[in-house]
């Protein structure tokens, strides 16, 4: 409210009037002023989570590559282009791959370099093109291995091989010593653009794996949290509403479950159930049932004593109606908060389980698995663990932030202070 002056009604733009009609939107925007920082936290984490959800639902739209396929050279840093390979030939000899058609053509490479793969890829591509033009030729030179690029160029000068493939940057300074040689066709593999987050040790795209990993992480953590909610909340309501022997027995079981350290219990359950995504979900769900049970039971016990419940009884409401219409809705705010915190926790637990190699098959694009395999290459390739780790952090943080700010906003006892 910038001023109290009356603005003539015709000066108010139509969209503002429409906004006034849309009560929910308006209230939502006004909440900014009312709840302050909590509103911003909720909105920011909400937007973050919407983005993450869209990634989980449509990973194909975001991910440039198949997460399971080896799409480039291994351990390529984020933004780095694969090195350019060139064909070196003699001045009067072959300078293009097309010149090397034949059954027993050999080409010099350095042992252990990517050259062999580049030859294969380029040759395959070229063969396809030629086939489309109607020529059926064999373009597959056999690699002749040398220990160093100097030796390879020496061999080329001595006519041991018709051509050598190597890195352009390495070859250029050596050409002065071999006046008879010339750099011919530049050969690049299938990779035309850099990988945004680099590639991992076996040449899979880190970005695609991180994006597809969202799906697994959210699927497991959501199903687990939902599963434990569906089990824990009714049990808690029943135990809180009808106290007695059953309630004591259930509380004993839940408390003993609760007293286990979370990850240890999950490890135990997964090792018993065996691998598989469903089993991981069940293992994590069992972990969180006591949380819902305890909170809901406590809340039910408290709400049951409220005067409005007694008033409802004095007006003849049925016990079931009291439970569903008076107690349950008043417990929902706590459930929402535990749910979001549990999802965050379940993501961590799931990543932890995959990290120690339990549960999911090893080729699954999953943050925990990526972290586990990436930690061996931490010194050479920082991006292997950084990005899955950041995703775990952001998504966990997003859920926790949403949970906390929602609890501030939804809990009337807190807002009154």
């Amino acid at each position, binding site marked *: 409210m910038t001023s109290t002056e009356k603005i003539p009604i015709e000066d108010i733009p139509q969209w503002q009037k429409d906004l006034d009609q849309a009560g929910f939107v308006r209230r939502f925007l006004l909440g900014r002023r009312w709840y302050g920082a909590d509103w911003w936290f909720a909105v920011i984490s909400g937007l973050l989570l919407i983005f993450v959800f869209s990634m989980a639902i449509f990973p194909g739209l975001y991910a440039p590559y198949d997460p399971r396929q080896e799409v480039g050279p291994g351990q390529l840093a984020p933004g780095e282009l694969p090195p350019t390979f060139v064909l070196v030939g003699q001045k009067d000899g072959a300078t293009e791959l097309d010149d090397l058609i034949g059954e027993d053509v050999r080409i010099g490479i350095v042992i252990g370099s990517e050259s062999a793969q580049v030859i294969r890829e380029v040759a395959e591509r070229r063969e396809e093109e030629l086939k489309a033009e109607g020529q059926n030729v064999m373009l597959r030179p056999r690699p002749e291995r040398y220990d160093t690029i100097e030796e390879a160029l020496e061999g080329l000068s001595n006519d041991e091989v018709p051509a050598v493939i190597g890195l352009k940057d390495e070859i250029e300074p050596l050409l002065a010593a071999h006046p008879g040689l010339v750099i011919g066709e530049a050969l690049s593999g299938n990779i035309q653009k850099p990988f945004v987050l680099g590639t991992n040790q076996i040449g899979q795209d880190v970005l695609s794996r991180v994006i597809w990993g969202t799906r697994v992480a959210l699927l497991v953590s959501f199903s687990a949290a939902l599963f434990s909610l569906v089990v824990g909340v009714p049990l808690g309501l029943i135990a809180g509403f009808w106290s007695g022997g059953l309630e004591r027995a259930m509380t004993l079981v839940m408390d003993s479950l609760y007293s286990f350290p979370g990850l240890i219990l999950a490890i135990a359950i997964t090792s018993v159930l065996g691998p598989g995504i469903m089993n991981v979900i069940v293992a994590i769900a069992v972990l969180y049932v006591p949380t819902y049970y305890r909170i809901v039971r406590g809340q039910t016990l408290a709400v049951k004593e409220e005067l409005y419940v007694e*008033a409802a009884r004095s007006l003849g*409401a049925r016990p079931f109606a009291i439970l569903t219409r*008076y107690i349950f809705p008043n417990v929902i705010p706590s459930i929402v908060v535990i749910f979001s915190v549990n999802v965050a926790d379940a993501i961590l637990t799931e990543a932890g389980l995959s990290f120690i190699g339990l549960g999911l098959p090893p080729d699954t694009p999953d943050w925990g698995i990526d972290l586990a395999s990436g930690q061996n290459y931490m010194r050479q390739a920082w991006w292997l663990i950084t990005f899955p780790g950041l995703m775990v952090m952001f998504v966990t943080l997003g859920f926790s932030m949403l949970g906390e700010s929602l609890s501030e906003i939804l809990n009337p006892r807190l807002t009154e202070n």
Partner: protein
Amino acid sequence: MANDTLLNIENLSVQYKTRMGWVSAVDNVSMEIKQGEILGLVGESGCGKSTLGKALLRINPPSARISGHLWFLGEDLMARTDEEMRQIRGQHISMIFQDPMTSLNPIQRMGDHLVETILTHEPEVGKEEARARAAALVDRLGISSTRLNDYPHQLSGGMRQRVMIGLALALNADLIIADEATTSLDVIVEAQFIELLKELRNEFNLTILLITHNIGLVAELSDRVAVMYAGRMAELSDARSVFKETLHPYTRGLLKAVPNIRLDDEEELYMMGGSPPDLVEPPTGCRYHPRCPQAMPVCAAEPSHFLEAGPDHFVNCWLYEDIPAEYADKEPGE
């Protein structure tokens, strides 16, 4: 005003189980509530007024043990099953609670409370009709029916209390138990509330059991007054006799303890000696005798009986009862 008995309470006792043993919160209380009257039930805090009120609806906590008979329109409520009792609550007997701030479900709209109450007991009434009835009722209670969609926190204390009355009226209950219904309201709202209650009583011929410790409110509203002490009935008569021709020493003490705005500096407010008894081990004989200025030897030994001492004036005190021969010649203090 008809003089038919609506509810006849016969030897009603309520005991609560605690770690210290059984607490007899209401002990052997008998009284009648007549059709169309306002019966004030007064007494100190903890004397069993609210327990008695809840026992009429049988909504005491499960740890309570209730015995006696509640003859409601000729039928014994104590013999009813829980399901039958549930039907009676709200429809025939309903209750208005002490704290209007917390006696409405905070996440249910005001109108939904009324609609739900109507539909619980009369499921054949459609939702639309129930809503129309709720709107009419709220209108009658002086709240604009546009506020049916408001949540309880959007209403003032007085409005909420009126909604509570509305809930009690929604099904034309025969008996309304108002348990400290005005205690948490300020005097202005309380006055409006009393006025409204009087109007409604004339309009709907309500029978109200007014449970309160506010003697002024009872004097203003009640036709008859019942005084309770430590779970027992002390005195019961029409309001005028109780205030003008007080019989029981406890009632006298209670009346003297009411603050008066004209009280000047020299006069101190009367303070009754002692404190209410421990109900786990109540005093022998008359429960008031340790604090009674007129206590006699018989008072500590034998409980007195709730007898008619004057026309329609019941009192529970040895002063108005024939003392058994073995105590007759003893002097007070012996």
